[in-house]
């Protein structure tokens, strides 16, 4: 009995010291105790896939193709009487008129919801660099070497076309990279509208003159 107890205590202590306690950090992948159907041959976003040579599940868009619809409107796209009205609409999608000049005024109906959406997206995607007030003093600005985020409150940027602003957001400007992969055209126009509101809020004198 004494021998048994000694072994028992030894095994318990050994197990606890090897396995540790709950919640301790470890870099080893979690053990799946009963891995019945946990991992199936299934496509998941951003996952690995040995079938393709580059090992990626998400396929890049082949060159020279035009996207018809996307994840969000795929139901409509596959319906029989679907007509893509936006295809080729350069005013909405690129902020340019057919002759390549920038659109003067944004092509969407101005509403409180649109400006509110613009504020949200601006605070997420632009505020870190350009600052909440658009003065170019965001949190990241002090760390930047060789670039200064633009201050929107100068006469040049107050007088440019809405389409120009849209183009900067989509394709970037010098050091600033474009954000069209993360913002839909409507969201980009909403940001333009909000930037205009910011510019006016910081320049009330000129406003009174109009």
């Amino acid at each position: 009995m004494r021998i048994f107890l000694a072994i028992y205590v030894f095994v318990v202590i050994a197990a606890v010291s090897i396995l540790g306690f709950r919640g301790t950090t470890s870099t080893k992948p979690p053990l799946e105790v009963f891995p019945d159907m946990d991992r199936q041959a299934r496509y998941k976003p951003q996952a690995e896939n040995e079938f393709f040579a580059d090992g990626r599940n998400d396929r890049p868009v082949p060159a020279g193709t035009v996207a018809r619809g996307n994840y969000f409107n795929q139901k409509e796209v596959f319906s029989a009487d679907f007509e893509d009205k936006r295809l080729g609409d350069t005013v909405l999608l690129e902020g340019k008129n057919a002759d390549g000049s920038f659109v003067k005024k944004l092509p969407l109906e101005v509403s409180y919801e649109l400006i509110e959406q613009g504020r949200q997206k601006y605070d997420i995607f632009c505020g870190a660099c350009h600052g909440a007030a658009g003065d170019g003093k965001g949190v990241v600005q002090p760390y930047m070497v060789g670039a200064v985020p633009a201050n929107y409150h100068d006469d040049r940027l107050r007088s440019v076309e809405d389409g120009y602003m849209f183009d900067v957001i989509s394709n970037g400007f010098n050091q600033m990279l474009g954000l069209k992969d993360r913002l839909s055209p409507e969201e980009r126009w909403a940001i333009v509208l909000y930037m205009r509101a910011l510019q006016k809020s910081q320049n009330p004198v000129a406003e009174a003159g109009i």
Partner: protein
Amino acid sequence: MANVFPRWVNTIPIKVIVAIVLIKTAVVLGVTYYATPKYTRVGYAPTQPVAFSHALHAGQLEIDCRYCHTFVDRSEHSNVPGSNVCMSCHSMVRKDDPMLAPVRESYESGEPIPWVRVHKTPDYVYFNHSVHVNRGISCVECHGRVDEMDVVQHEKSFSMAFCLECHRNPEEYIRPVEEVYNLDWERPEGEAAEAEFEGFVHDWKVNPPQSCSGCHR
């Protein structure tokens, strides 16, 4: 007749019973403590190819989660950002830092950075980020204080009981939609606050599935 068995043999049954009870207790306690996701998953913090720190970017710099995890409020999958997102800042910030060499290489070659996946539900579970996030369920409830982590670690167990605990009482976890991305929001206490949260559940018609087909579809 002389005794065939010596006297100590009488204690064998009792010793066997004690031994069985002890072994059983140890095995049961061991399995309940160790063979659950609370032990196997919580604390999993793989070494990432780039020493990216949420404590710096999301905590100190206060960059919104959606700057990088852009589609968390629009789709079921919360995407991990591509290297172009990192480069939007790191083409100007710390341009030549050797820590960021893999990011620059990836940006130039188009090969993705091989981030190691931390949270993985089994493939027979259906999960959707946007329904949760747009109904006032914050990242903290499921991922913990990511904005204080230098290395992302698995905070919660993600067992079925964990999901159901909240699906049964959403009013204990729900918060105003504006505060979802603010991980250090403090939950107000008291009756007025509770009535407000119940109001959210009622007004937004929040109805989390508890039937099997809700999550196993």
